[in-house]
Protein backbone atom coordinates (compact mmCIF):
# COMPACT_ATOMS: atom_id res chain seq x y z
CA UNK A 1 0.00 0.00 0.00
CA UNK A 2 1.30 3.50 -0.77
CA UNK A 3 2.06 5.79 2.14
CA UNK A 4 -0.91 7.69 3.62
CA UNK A 5 -0.88 11.38 2.64
CA UNK A 6 -2.07 14.45 4.52
CA UNK A 7 -4.71 15.06 1.83
CA UNK A 8 -6.11 11.57 2.33
CA UNK A 9 -6.29 12.16 6.06
CA UNK A 10 -8.14 15.41 5.42
CA UNK A 11 -10.59 13.55 3.16
CA UNK A 12 -11.19 10.82 5.75
CA UNK A 13 -11.81 13.50 8.41
CA UNK A 14 -14.46 15.00 6.13
CA UNK A 15 -16.11 11.59 5.66
CA UNK A 16 -16.04 11.00 9.43
CA UNK A 17 -17.46 14.48 10.16
CA UNK A 18 -14.49 15.46 12.30
CA UNK A 19 -13.11 19.00 12.26
CA UNK A 20 -9.39 18.61 12.87
CA UNK A 21 -6.75 21.25 13.56
CA UNK A 22 -3.56 21.48 11.44
CA UNK A 23 -1.50 19.93 14.22
CA UNK A 24 -3.95 17.02 14.50
CA UNK A 25 -3.83 16.46 10.75
CA UNK A 26 -0.03 16.30 10.91
CA UNK A 27 0.00 13.94 13.88
CA UNK A 28 -2.69 11.65 12.49
CA UNK A 29 -0.94 11.46 9.13
CA UNK A 30 2.15 10.07 10.86
CA UNK A 31 0.39 7.89 13.44
CA UNK A 32 -2.24 6.40 11.14
CA UNK A 33 0.50 5.76 8.59
CA UNK A 34 2.40 3.77 11.20
CA UNK A 35 -0.66 1.73 12.13
CA UNK A 36 -1.46 1.04 8.46
CA UNK A 37 2.14 -0.06 7.85
CA UNK A 38 1.82 -2.39 10.83
CA UNK A 39 -1.48 -3.97 9.75
CA UNK A 40 0.04 -4.57 6.31
CA UNK A 41 1.44 -7.77 7.86
CA UNK A 42 -1.95 -9.38 7.11
CA UNK A 43 -1.02 -9.24 3.43
CA UNK A 44 1.37 -12.17 3.88
CA UNK A 45 -1.55 -14.54 4.60
CA UNK A 46 -3.42 -16.28 1.83
CA UNK A 47 -7.10 -15.92 2.74
CA UNK A 48 -8.54 -16.65 -0.67
CA UNK A 49 -10.80 -19.48 0.57
CA UNK A 50 -11.53 -18.17 4.07
CA UNK A 51 -15.04 -17.00 4.92
CA UNK A 52 -15.04 -13.61 6.68
CA UNK A 53 -16.11 -13.77 10.34
CA UNK A 54 -18.09 -10.71 11.36
CA UNK A 55 -19.31 -12.07 14.68
CA UNK A 56 -18.06 -14.55 17.26
CA UNK A 57 -21.51 -16.07 17.70
CA UNK A 58 -23.06 -16.36 14.31
CA UNK A 59 -26.69 -15.79 15.19
CA UNK A 60 -28.99 -14.81 12.39
CA UNK A 61 -32.64 -13.87 12.19
CA UNK A 62 -33.54 -13.58 15.84
CA UNK A 63 -37.33 -13.36 15.95
CA UNK A 64 -39.71 -12.00 18.53
CA UNK A 65 -43.44 -11.50 18.69
CA UNK A 66 -44.51 -8.26 17.03
CA UNK A 67 -46.37 -6.76 19.96
CA UNK A 68 -46.56 -3.20 21.19
CA UNK A 69 -44.57 -2.61 24.38
CA UNK A 70 -43.85 0.56 26.36
CA UNK A 71 -41.18 2.89 24.97
CA UNK A 72 -39.56 6.10 26.16
CA UNK A 73 -41.94 8.94 26.87
CA UNK A 74 -41.39 11.94 24.61
CA UNK A 75 -40.15 14.24 27.37
CA UNK A 76 -37.59 11.63 28.44
CA UNK A 77 -36.40 11.12 24.87
CA UNK A 78 -35.94 14.87 24.49
CA UNK A 79 -34.46 15.48 27.94
CA UNK A 80 -30.83 15.16 26.83
CA UNK A 81 -31.19 17.00 23.52
CA UNK A 82 -28.88 20.01 23.09
CA UNK A 83 -31.88 21.88 21.62
CA UNK A 84 -35.55 20.97 21.51
CA UNK A 85 -38.87 22.77 21.65
CA UNK A 86 -40.49 20.19 23.89
CA UNK A 87 -41.94 18.36 20.90
CA UNK A 88 -39.06 17.95 18.44
CA UNK A 89 -35.26 17.91 18.26
CA UNK A 90 -34.14 21.25 16.82
CA UNK A 91 -31.41 21.37 14.19
CA UNK A 92 -29.88 24.21 12.15
CA UNK A 93 -31.60 25.05 8.84
CA UNK A 94 -30.74 22.50 6.15
CA UNK A 95 -32.16 24.50 3.22
CA UNK A 96 -30.91 27.92 2.22
Amino acid at each position, binding site marked *: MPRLTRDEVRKVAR*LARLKLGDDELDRFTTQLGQVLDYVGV*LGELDTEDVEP*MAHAVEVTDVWREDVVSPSLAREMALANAPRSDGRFFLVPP*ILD
Partner: protein
Amino acid sequence: MSLFGSTADLLTRLDRGEQTSVELTAACLAAIDEHDGRIGAFLSVDRHGALEQAEAIDRRRRAGGPVGPLAGLPVAVKDVLCTAGRPTTCASRMLERFTPPYDAHVIARLRAADAVLVGKTNMDEFAMGSSTENSAFQVTRNPWDLERTPGGSSGGSAAALAAGMVPLAIGSDTGGSIRQPASFCGVVGMKPTYGRVSRYGLVAFASSLDQVGPLASDVTGAAVLLEAIAGRDRRDSTSLDVPVPEFGRRVDEPLAGLRIGIAREHFAEGLEAEVEQAVREALGAYRSQGAEIVETALPHSKYAVAVYYLIAPSEASSNLARYDGVHYGRRAAEFENMIDMYAATRGEAFGEEVKRRIMLGTYALSAGYYDAYYLKALKVRRLIRRDFDEAFEHCDVIASPVTPRPAYRIGELAGDPLAMYLGDIYTIGANLAGLPALSVPCGFSGSGLPIGLQLVGPPLEEERLLRAARMYERATGWHRRRAVLGA
Protein backbone atom coordinates in the same frame (compact mmCIF):
# COMPACT_ATOMS: atom_id res chain seq x y z
CA MET B 1 -8.83 -10.36 49.36
CA SER B 2 -9.54 -6.79 50.31
CA LEU B 3 -9.55 -5.05 53.66
CA PHE B 4 -13.14 -6.30 53.85
CA GLY B 5 -11.97 -9.95 53.96
CA SER B 6 -12.65 -12.59 51.34
CA THR B 7 -15.91 -12.48 49.38
CA ALA B 8 -16.98 -15.77 50.96
CA ASP B 9 -16.40 -14.34 54.48
CA LEU B 10 -18.23 -11.16 53.60
CA LEU B 11 -21.26 -13.05 52.33
CA THR B 12 -21.27 -15.24 55.45
CA ARG B 13 -21.03 -12.25 57.81
CA LEU B 14 -23.84 -10.47 55.97
CA ASP B 15 -25.96 -13.60 56.01
CA ARG B 16 -25.49 -14.12 59.77
CA GLY B 17 -26.17 -10.46 60.51
CA GLU B 18 -22.65 -10.01 61.91
CA GLN B 19 -22.17 -7.16 59.49
CA THR B 20 -24.68 -4.89 57.81
CA SER B 21 -24.72 -3.57 54.29
CA VAL B 22 -24.81 -0.04 55.74
CA GLU B 23 -21.58 -0.69 57.65
CA LEU B 24 -19.89 -2.05 54.54
CA THR B 25 -21.17 0.76 52.35
CA ALA B 26 -20.08 3.37 54.89
CA ALA B 27 -16.63 1.72 55.00
CA CYS B 28 -16.40 1.98 51.19
CA LEU B 29 -17.43 5.63 51.23
CA ALA B 30 -14.86 6.34 53.98
CA ALA B 31 -12.13 4.57 51.96
CA ILE B 32 -13.09 6.61 48.89
CA ASP B 33 -12.90 9.82 50.96
CA GLU B 34 -9.53 8.83 52.29
CA HIS B 35 -7.82 7.56 49.15
CA ASP B 36 -9.57 8.65 46.00
CA GLY B 37 -8.11 12.14 46.04
CA ARG B 38 -4.82 10.48 45.10
CA ILE B 39 -6.08 7.47 43.11
CA GLY B 40 -8.78 9.12 40.99
CA ALA B 41 -10.77 5.91 40.46
CA PHE B 42 -14.28 7.42 40.62
CA LEU B 43 -15.95 9.88 38.28
CA SER B 44 -19.05 10.09 40.47
CA VAL B 45 -20.04 8.69 43.86
CA ASP B 46 -23.68 8.20 44.78
CA ARG B 47 -23.29 8.52 48.54
CA HIS B 48 -26.92 9.11 49.34
CA GLY B 49 -28.34 6.53 46.92
CA ALA B 50 -25.88 3.86 48.07
CA LEU B 51 -26.67 4.29 51.76
CA GLU B 52 -30.38 4.36 51.04
CA GLN B 53 -30.11 1.11 49.06
CA ALA B 54 -28.02 -0.51 51.83
CA GLU B 55 -30.54 0.50 54.50
CA ALA B 56 -33.39 -0.99 52.50
CA ILE B 57 -31.51 -4.29 52.08
CA ASP B 58 -30.62 -4.43 55.80
CA ARG B 59 -34.22 -3.69 56.74
CA ARG B 60 -35.47 -6.47 54.52
CA ARG B 61 -32.95 -8.91 55.97
CA ARG B 62 -33.89 -8.03 59.56
CA ALA B 63 -37.55 -8.55 58.72
CA GLY B 64 -36.72 -12.03 57.42
CA GLY B 65 -37.54 -11.11 53.82
CA PRO B 66 -35.72 -12.44 50.75
CA VAL B 67 -32.30 -10.92 50.02
CA GLY B 68 -30.60 -11.23 46.61
CA PRO B 69 -27.37 -13.17 46.03
CA LEU B 70 -25.16 -10.07 46.30
CA ALA B 71 -26.71 -9.50 49.73
CA GLY B 72 -25.84 -5.81 50.06
CA LEU B 73 -22.26 -5.94 48.77
CA PRO B 74 -21.07 -2.59 47.38
CA VAL B 75 -20.17 -2.57 43.67
CA ALA B 76 -18.39 0.09 41.60
CA VAL B 77 -19.47 0.34 37.96
CA LYS B 78 -17.43 1.52 34.98
CA ASP B 79 -18.96 4.72 33.64
CA VAL B 80 -19.82 3.01 30.34
CA LEU B 81 -23.09 1.46 31.59
CA CYS B 82 -26.26 3.54 31.64
CA THR B 83 -27.66 4.29 35.09
CA ALA B 84 -31.13 5.83 35.07
CA GLY B 85 -31.07 9.38 36.42
CA ARG B 86 -27.35 9.23 37.25
CA PRO B 87 -24.54 10.65 35.10
CA THR B 88 -22.99 8.29 32.52
CA THR B 89 -20.10 10.06 30.81
CA CYS B 90 -17.92 7.37 29.22
CA ALA B 91 -15.17 9.74 30.42
CA SER B 92 -15.97 11.91 27.39
CA ARG B 93 -16.73 15.62 27.02
CA MET B 94 -19.36 14.45 24.53
CA LEU B 95 -21.46 12.89 27.32
CA GLU B 96 -20.37 15.19 30.16
CA ARG B 97 -23.94 16.26 30.92
CA PHE B 98 -25.77 13.12 29.74
CA THR B 99 -28.27 11.51 32.10
CA PRO B 100 -29.59 8.18 30.81
CA PRO B 101 -33.36 7.68 30.86
CA TYR B 102 -32.99 3.95 31.62
CA ASP B 103 -30.79 1.38 33.36
CA ALA B 104 -28.52 -0.96 31.41
CA HIS B 105 -29.55 -4.60 31.72
CA VAL B 106 -26.50 -5.27 33.90
CA ILE B 107 -27.45 -2.41 36.24
CA ALA B 108 -30.99 -3.74 36.56
CA ARG B 109 -29.58 -7.20 37.33
CA LEU B 110 -27.24 -5.76 39.96
CA ARG B 111 -30.13 -3.94 41.65
CA ALA B 112 -32.25 -7.11 41.55
CA ALA B 113 -29.38 -9.08 43.11
CA ASP B 114 -29.15 -6.51 45.95
CA ALA B 115 -25.80 -5.03 45.02
CA VAL B 116 -25.25 -1.53 46.41
CA LEU B 117 -24.18 0.82 43.60
CA VAL B 118 -21.62 3.17 45.12
CA GLY B 119 -20.45 5.03 42.05
CA LYS B 120 -19.13 5.15 38.50
CA THR B 121 -15.48 4.60 37.71
CA ASN B 122 -12.99 6.30 35.42
CA MET B 123 -12.00 4.78 32.08
CA ASP B 124 -10.40 5.56 28.77
CA GLU B 125 -12.83 7.69 26.78
CA PHE B 126 -15.44 5.40 25.19
CA ALA B 127 -13.31 2.45 26.46
CA MET B 128 -10.62 3.19 23.87
CA GLY B 129 -7.25 2.77 25.47
CA SER B 130 -5.10 0.62 27.71
CA SER B 131 -4.09 3.02 30.49
CA THR B 132 -7.15 5.14 31.47
CA GLU B 133 -5.02 8.13 30.40
CA ASN B 134 -7.55 8.84 27.64
CA SER B 135 -10.18 9.94 30.16
CA ALA B 136 -11.27 13.50 29.41
CA PHE B 137 -11.63 14.21 33.12
CA GLN B 138 -8.86 12.78 35.28
CA VAL B 139 -5.84 10.56 35.62
CA THR B 140 -6.24 7.32 37.58
CA ARG B 141 -3.19 6.09 39.46
CA ASN B 142 -2.17 2.52 40.18
CA PRO B 143 -2.49 1.87 43.94
CA TRP B 144 0.67 -0.27 43.82
CA ASP B 145 2.74 2.64 42.47
CA LEU B 146 1.13 6.04 42.08
CA GLU B 147 3.49 6.96 39.22
CA ARG B 148 2.09 4.11 37.10
CA THR B 149 -1.13 3.59 35.20
CA PRO B 150 -3.77 1.16 36.49
CA GLY B 151 -4.17 -0.16 32.94
CA GLY B 152 -7.33 0.34 30.95
CA SER B 153 -9.80 0.86 29.79
CA SER B 154 -11.51 -0.32 33.02
CA GLY B 155 -8.68 1.27 35.05
CA GLY B 156 -10.96 3.01 37.56
CA SER B 157 -12.72 -0.24 38.49
CA ALA B 158 -9.43 -2.12 38.94
CA ALA B 159 -7.82 0.72 40.94
CA ALA B 160 -10.89 1.06 43.20
CA LEU B 161 -10.57 -2.64 44.06
CA ALA B 162 -6.81 -2.57 44.57
CA ALA B 163 -7.14 0.47 46.85
CA GLY B 164 -9.73 -1.35 48.97
CA MET B 165 -12.51 1.13 48.15
CA VAL B 166 -14.99 -1.58 47.06
CA PRO B 167 -15.06 -5.40 47.18
CA LEU B 168 -16.56 -5.82 43.67
CA ALA B 169 -16.59 -3.89 40.40
CA ILE B 170 -17.92 -4.05 36.87
CA GLY B 171 -15.89 -3.42 33.72
CA SER B 172 -16.18 -3.94 30.00
CA ASP B 173 -13.70 -5.72 27.75
CA THR B 174 -13.35 -5.18 23.99
CA GLY B 175 -9.68 -6.15 23.58
CA GLY B 176 -8.55 -6.81 27.15
CA SER B 177 -10.06 -3.85 29.02
CA ILE B 178 -11.03 -5.94 32.07
CA ARG B 179 -8.14 -8.42 32.14
CA GLN B 180 -5.27 -6.01 31.56
CA PRO B 181 -6.19 -3.54 34.35
CA ALA B 182 -6.97 -6.51 36.64
CA SER B 183 -3.45 -7.76 35.93
CA PHE B 184 -1.84 -4.33 36.43
CA CYS B 185 -3.68 -3.84 39.75
CA GLY B 186 -3.38 -7.36 41.21
CA VAL B 187 -7.09 -8.27 41.16
CA VAL B 188 -9.25 -10.84 39.37
CA GLY B 189 -11.07 -9.88 36.16
CA MET B 190 -13.11 -11.86 33.66
CA LYS B 191 -14.37 -11.31 30.15
CA PRO B 192 -17.26 -13.74 29.64
CA THR B 193 -18.12 -15.54 26.40
CA TYR B 194 -19.50 -13.12 23.81
CA GLY B 195 -23.26 -13.13 24.38
CA ARG B 196 -23.13 -14.36 27.98
CA VAL B 197 -23.99 -10.90 29.34
CA SER B 198 -26.46 -8.52 27.70
CA ARG B 199 -25.02 -5.37 26.14
CA TYR B 200 -28.31 -3.46 26.49
CA GLY B 201 -27.40 -0.06 27.94
CA LEU B 202 -23.66 -0.58 27.49
CA VAL B 203 -22.39 2.38 25.49
CA ALA B 204 -21.22 0.73 22.28
CA PHE B 205 -17.59 0.74 21.16
CA ALA B 206 -17.09 -2.33 18.92
CA SER B 207 -20.29 -4.33 19.08
CA SER B 208 -18.97 -7.69 17.87
CA LEU B 209 -16.28 -7.63 20.59
CA ASP B 210 -17.72 -5.75 23.60
CA GLN B 211 -18.61 -7.78 26.72
CA VAL B 212 -19.40 -6.65 30.26
CA GLY B 213 -17.75 -8.62 33.05
CA PRO B 214 -16.78 -8.77 36.72
CA LEU B 215 -13.69 -7.57 38.57
CA ALA B 216 -13.14 -8.62 42.17
CA SER B 217 -10.52 -8.97 44.83
CA ASP B 218 -10.80 -12.77 44.63
CA VAL B 219 -12.10 -15.46 42.26
CA THR B 220 -15.21 -16.12 44.35
CA GLY B 221 -16.17 -12.46 44.01
CA ALA B 222 -15.87 -12.67 40.22
CA ALA B 223 -17.97 -15.86 40.23
CA VAL B 224 -20.88 -14.48 42.26
CA LEU B 225 -20.85 -11.21 40.34
CA LEU B 226 -20.86 -12.95 36.95
CA GLU B 227 -23.71 -15.19 38.06
CA ALA B 228 -25.72 -12.09 38.99
CA ILE B 229 -25.28 -10.30 35.63
CA ALA B 230 -25.27 -13.20 33.13
CA GLY B 231 -28.21 -14.52 31.13
CA ARG B 232 -30.49 -13.95 28.20
CA ASP B 233 -32.02 -10.52 27.62
CA ARG B 234 -34.31 -10.10 24.66
CA ARG B 235 -33.24 -6.46 24.28
CA ASP B 236 -29.81 -7.66 23.09
CA SER B 237 -30.36 -10.05 20.18
CA THR B 238 -26.79 -11.38 20.53
CA SER B 239 -27.30 -12.41 24.16
CA LEU B 240 -27.34 -16.19 24.39
CA ASP B 241 -30.34 -18.19 25.51
CA VAL B 242 -28.44 -20.74 27.60
CA PRO B 243 -28.66 -21.62 31.30
CA VAL B 244 -26.35 -19.75 33.69
CA PRO B 245 -24.46 -22.18 35.96
CA GLU B 246 -24.24 -21.56 39.71
CA PHE B 247 -20.73 -20.14 39.46
CA GLY B 248 -20.67 -19.03 43.10
CA ARG B 249 -21.59 -22.43 44.52
CA ARG B 250 -19.26 -24.41 42.22
CA VAL B 251 -16.16 -22.21 42.30
CA ASP B 252 -14.47 -24.03 45.21
CA GLU B 253 -14.60 -27.43 43.49
CA PRO B 254 -11.14 -28.22 42.06
CA LEU B 255 -10.89 -29.72 38.57
CA ALA B 256 -9.45 -33.23 38.37
CA GLY B 257 -7.26 -34.07 35.39
CA LEU B 258 -7.10 -30.47 34.14
CA ARG B 259 -5.18 -30.18 30.86
CA ILE B 260 -3.58 -26.74 30.53
CA GLY B 261 -2.42 -25.76 27.06
CA ILE B 262 0.48 -23.40 26.56
CA ALA B 263 1.15 -21.90 23.15
CA ARG B 264 4.74 -21.20 22.19
CA GLU B 265 3.60 -17.98 20.49
CA HIS B 266 2.74 -16.59 23.92
CA PHE B 267 6.30 -16.95 25.15
CA ALA B 268 8.08 -15.34 22.23
CA GLU B 269 9.86 -12.05 21.64
CA GLY B 270 8.70 -9.04 23.64
CA LEU B 271 7.73 -10.87 26.83
CA GLU B 272 9.57 -9.57 29.90
CA ALA B 273 11.56 -12.19 31.81
CA GLU B 274 9.87 -11.49 35.17
CA VAL B 275 6.42 -11.98 33.65
CA GLU B 276 7.46 -15.20 31.92
CA GLN B 277 8.95 -16.53 35.16
CA ALA B 278 5.78 -15.78 37.16
CA VAL B 279 3.62 -17.52 34.55
CA ARG B 280 5.92 -20.55 34.41
CA GLU B 281 5.85 -20.80 38.21
CA ALA B 282 2.06 -20.72 38.07
CA LEU B 283 2.17 -23.66 35.66
CA GLY B 284 4.38 -25.45 38.19
CA ALA B 285 1.78 -24.81 40.90
CA TYR B 286 -0.88 -26.34 38.67
CA ARG B 287 1.34 -29.33 37.92
CA SER B 288 1.77 -30.02 41.63
CA GLN B 289 -2.03 -30.11 41.91
CA GLY B 290 -2.19 -32.84 39.29
CA ALA B 291 -2.78 -30.75 36.18
CA GLU B 292 -1.13 -31.75 32.93
CA ILE B 293 0.67 -29.11 30.86
CA VAL B 294 0.16 -29.61 27.12
CA GLU B 295 2.11 -27.87 24.37
CA THR B 296 -0.17 -26.31 21.79
CA ALA B 297 0.03 -23.72 19.03
CA LEU B 298 -1.92 -20.62 18.00
CA PRO B 299 -0.10 -19.90 14.74
CA HIS B 300 -2.19 -16.87 13.80
CA SER B 301 -1.97 -15.14 17.18
CA LYS B 302 0.77 -12.84 15.91
CA TYR B 303 -1.83 -11.27 13.59
CA ALA B 304 -4.33 -10.56 16.37
CA VAL B 305 -3.28 -6.97 17.05
CA ALA B 306 -3.45 -6.07 13.35
CA VAL B 307 -6.87 -7.71 12.96
CA TYR B 308 -8.20 -6.01 16.09
CA TYR B 309 -6.98 -2.53 15.16
CA LEU B 310 -8.90 -2.79 11.90
CA ILE B 311 -12.12 -4.39 13.14
CA ALA B 312 -12.55 -2.46 16.41
CA PRO B 313 -12.00 1.01 14.87
CA SER B 314 -14.25 0.10 11.91
CA GLU B 315 -17.09 -0.82 14.25
CA ALA B 316 -16.34 2.22 16.41
CA SER B 317 -16.49 4.60 13.45
CA SER B 318 -19.97 3.33 12.73
CA ASN B 319 -21.17 3.21 16.36
CA LEU B 320 -19.89 6.67 17.21
CA ALA B 321 -21.66 8.24 14.23
CA ARG B 322 -24.61 8.59 16.62
CA TYR B 323 -22.87 11.51 18.39
CA ASP B 324 -24.20 14.15 16.07
CA GLY B 325 -25.04 17.01 18.43
CA VAL B 326 -28.77 16.45 17.85
CA HIS B 327 -30.28 13.75 20.03
CA TYR B 328 -28.15 13.82 23.15
CA GLY B 329 -24.71 14.89 24.26
CA ARG B 330 -22.88 18.03 23.38
CA ARG B 331 -23.37 20.45 20.49
CA ALA B 332 -20.70 22.95 19.44
CA ALA B 333 -21.56 26.59 20.14
CA GLU B 334 -20.42 27.90 16.76
CA PHE B 335 -20.87 26.44 13.27
CA GLU B 336 -21.79 27.53 9.77
CA ASN B 337 -24.38 24.95 8.73
CA MET B 338 -25.72 21.48 9.55
CA ILE B 339 -22.70 19.53 8.27
CA ASP B 340 -20.33 21.92 9.98
CA MET B 341 -22.33 21.51 13.19
CA TYR B 342 -21.62 17.76 13.13
CA ALA B 343 -17.93 18.22 12.39
CA ALA B 344 -17.38 21.04 14.89
CA THR B 345 -19.23 19.17 17.64
CA ARG B 346 -17.32 15.93 17.06
CA GLY B 347 -14.00 17.72 16.55
CA GLU B 348 -14.21 19.52 19.89
CA ALA B 349 -15.98 16.92 22.07
CA PHE B 350 -14.03 13.75 21.19
CA GLY B 351 -10.55 13.24 22.58
CA GLU B 352 -7.57 12.42 20.41
CA GLU B 353 -7.60 8.63 20.72
CA VAL B 354 -11.30 8.46 19.89
CA LYS B 355 -10.76 10.63 16.83
CA ARG B 356 -7.76 8.54 15.81
CA ARG B 357 -9.83 5.36 15.92
CA ILE B 358 -12.79 6.88 14.10
CA MET B 359 -10.36 8.00 11.40
CA LEU B 360 -8.72 4.58 11.18
CA GLY B 361 -12.09 2.84 10.96
CA THR B 362 -13.48 5.27 8.41
CA TYR B 363 -10.40 4.72 6.29
CA ALA B 364 -10.54 0.92 6.56
CA LEU B 365 -14.21 0.93 5.52
CA SER B 366 -13.89 3.49 2.74
CA ALA B 367 -14.24 2.75 -0.94
CA GLY B 368 -11.10 1.19 -2.37
CA TYR B 369 -9.76 0.02 0.99
CA TYR B 370 -12.62 -2.10 2.34
CA ASP B 371 -11.40 -5.38 0.81
CA ALA B 372 -7.76 -4.83 1.60
CA TYR B 373 -8.28 -3.87 5.22
CA TYR B 374 -11.68 -4.60 6.77
CA LEU B 375 -12.61 -7.74 4.82
CA LYS B 376 -9.07 -9.09 5.11
CA ALA B 377 -9.22 -8.61 8.89
CA LEU B 378 -12.54 -10.50 9.09
CA LYS B 379 -10.99 -13.43 7.25
CA VAL B 380 -7.96 -13.59 9.50
CA ARG B 381 -10.35 -13.34 12.46
CA ARG B 382 -11.76 -16.70 11.39
CA LEU B 383 -8.26 -18.21 11.22
CA ILE B 384 -7.63 -17.01 14.77
CA ARG B 385 -10.87 -18.61 15.96
CA ARG B 386 -9.94 -21.88 14.18
CA ASP B 387 -6.60 -21.96 15.99
CA PHE B 388 -8.42 -21.87 19.32
CA ASP B 389 -10.94 -24.53 18.26
CA GLU B 390 -8.09 -26.83 17.26
CA ALA B 391 -6.12 -26.15 20.45
CA PHE B 392 -9.14 -26.97 22.63
CA GLU B 393 -9.33 -30.41 21.04
CA HIS B 394 -6.44 -31.46 23.27
CA CYS B 395 -6.54 -29.09 26.25
CA ASP B 396 -9.20 -27.67 28.60
CA VAL B 397 -7.85 -24.16 29.09
CA ILE B 398 -5.02 -22.13 27.58
CA ALA B 399 -2.69 -20.36 30.03
CA SER B 400 -0.60 -17.33 29.09
CA PRO B 401 0.59 -13.98 30.39
CA VAL B 402 -2.04 -11.21 30.35
CA THR B 403 0.43 -8.56 29.23
CA PRO B 404 4.04 -8.61 28.08
CA ARG B 405 5.11 -6.39 31.01
CA PRO B 406 3.68 -5.05 34.28
CA ALA B 407 2.13 -1.57 34.65
CA TYR B 408 4.00 1.17 32.81
CA ARG B 409 4.52 4.75 33.92
CA ILE B 410 1.89 7.42 33.39
CA GLY B 411 2.79 9.21 30.16
CA GLU B 412 5.31 6.56 29.08
CA LEU B 413 3.41 5.42 25.98
CA ALA B 414 1.01 8.33 25.60
CA GLY B 415 2.68 9.68 22.44
CA ASP B 416 3.09 6.29 20.75
CA PRO B 417 -0.32 4.71 20.04
CA LEU B 418 1.12 1.71 18.18
CA ALA B 419 3.37 0.76 21.12
CA MET B 420 0.36 0.86 23.43
CA TYR B 421 -1.72 -1.24 20.99
CA LEU B 422 1.00 -3.92 20.95
CA GLY B 423 0.56 -4.41 24.71
CA ASP B 424 -2.82 -6.01 23.95
CA ILE B 425 -1.21 -8.95 22.10
CA TYR B 426 -2.25 -11.70 24.54
CA THR B 427 -5.75 -10.50 25.41
CA ILE B 428 -7.21 -9.63 22.00
CA GLY B 429 -7.52 -13.21 20.71
CA ALA B 430 -10.30 -14.05 23.19
CA ASN B 431 -12.35 -11.07 22.00
CA LEU B 432 -11.89 -11.82 18.32
CA ALA B 433 -12.86 -15.47 18.90
CA GLY B 434 -15.63 -14.62 21.42
CA LEU B 435 -14.12 -16.83 24.15
CA PRO B 436 -14.26 -16.45 27.94
CA ALA B 437 -10.99 -15.42 29.56
CA LEU B 438 -9.86 -14.28 32.97
CA SER B 439 -6.88 -12.75 34.71
CA VAL B 440 -5.81 -13.95 38.16
CA PRO B 441 -2.85 -12.54 40.17
CA CYS B 442 0.25 -14.77 39.84
CA GLY B 443 3.07 -12.86 41.46
CA PHE B 444 5.00 -9.60 41.55
CA SER B 445 7.87 -8.02 39.68
CA GLY B 446 11.11 -7.16 41.45
CA SER B 447 9.80 -3.61 41.92
CA GLY B 448 6.59 -4.85 43.53
CA LEU B 449 4.18 -4.58 40.60
CA PRO B 450 1.46 -7.23 40.21
CA ILE B 451 1.62 -9.80 37.40
CA GLY B 452 -1.42 -11.65 36.04
CA LEU B 453 -2.01 -15.13 34.64
CA GLN B 454 -4.55 -15.40 31.83
CA LEU B 455 -6.74 -18.47 31.35
CA VAL B 456 -8.82 -18.76 28.17
CA GLY B 457 -11.52 -21.40 27.70
CA PRO B 458 -13.88 -22.71 25.02
CA PRO B 459 -17.23 -20.90 24.56
CA LEU B 460 -19.47 -20.87 27.66
CA GLU B 461 -16.86 -22.57 29.87
CA GLU B 462 -16.69 -19.73 32.42
CA GLU B 463 -17.27 -22.22 35.22
CA ARG B 464 -14.18 -24.20 34.19
CA LEU B 465 -12.08 -21.03 34.16
CA LEU B 466 -13.33 -19.86 37.54
CA ARG B 467 -12.75 -23.24 39.17
CA ALA B 468 -9.29 -23.51 37.61
CA ALA B 469 -8.43 -19.99 38.80
CA ARG B 470 -9.76 -20.68 42.29
CA MET B 471 -7.63 -23.86 42.55
CA TYR B 472 -4.58 -21.77 41.83
CA GLU B 473 -5.59 -18.86 44.04
CA ARG B 474 -6.20 -21.11 47.03
CA ALA B 475 -2.83 -22.83 46.58
CA THR B 476 -0.80 -19.64 46.20
CA GLY B 477 -2.62 -16.76 47.88
CA TRP B 478 -1.18 -13.90 45.80
CA HIS B 479 -4.54 -12.16 46.00
CA ARG B 480 -4.10 -11.68 49.74
CA ARG B 481 -1.28 -9.16 49.25
CA ARG B 482 -2.61 -5.62 49.36
CA ALA B 483 -1.26 -2.34 48.05
CA VAL B 484 -0.08 -0.11 50.89
CA LEU B 485 -1.52 3.37 50.61
CA GLY B 486 0.06 6.06 52.77
CA ALA B 487 -2.13 8.58 54.59
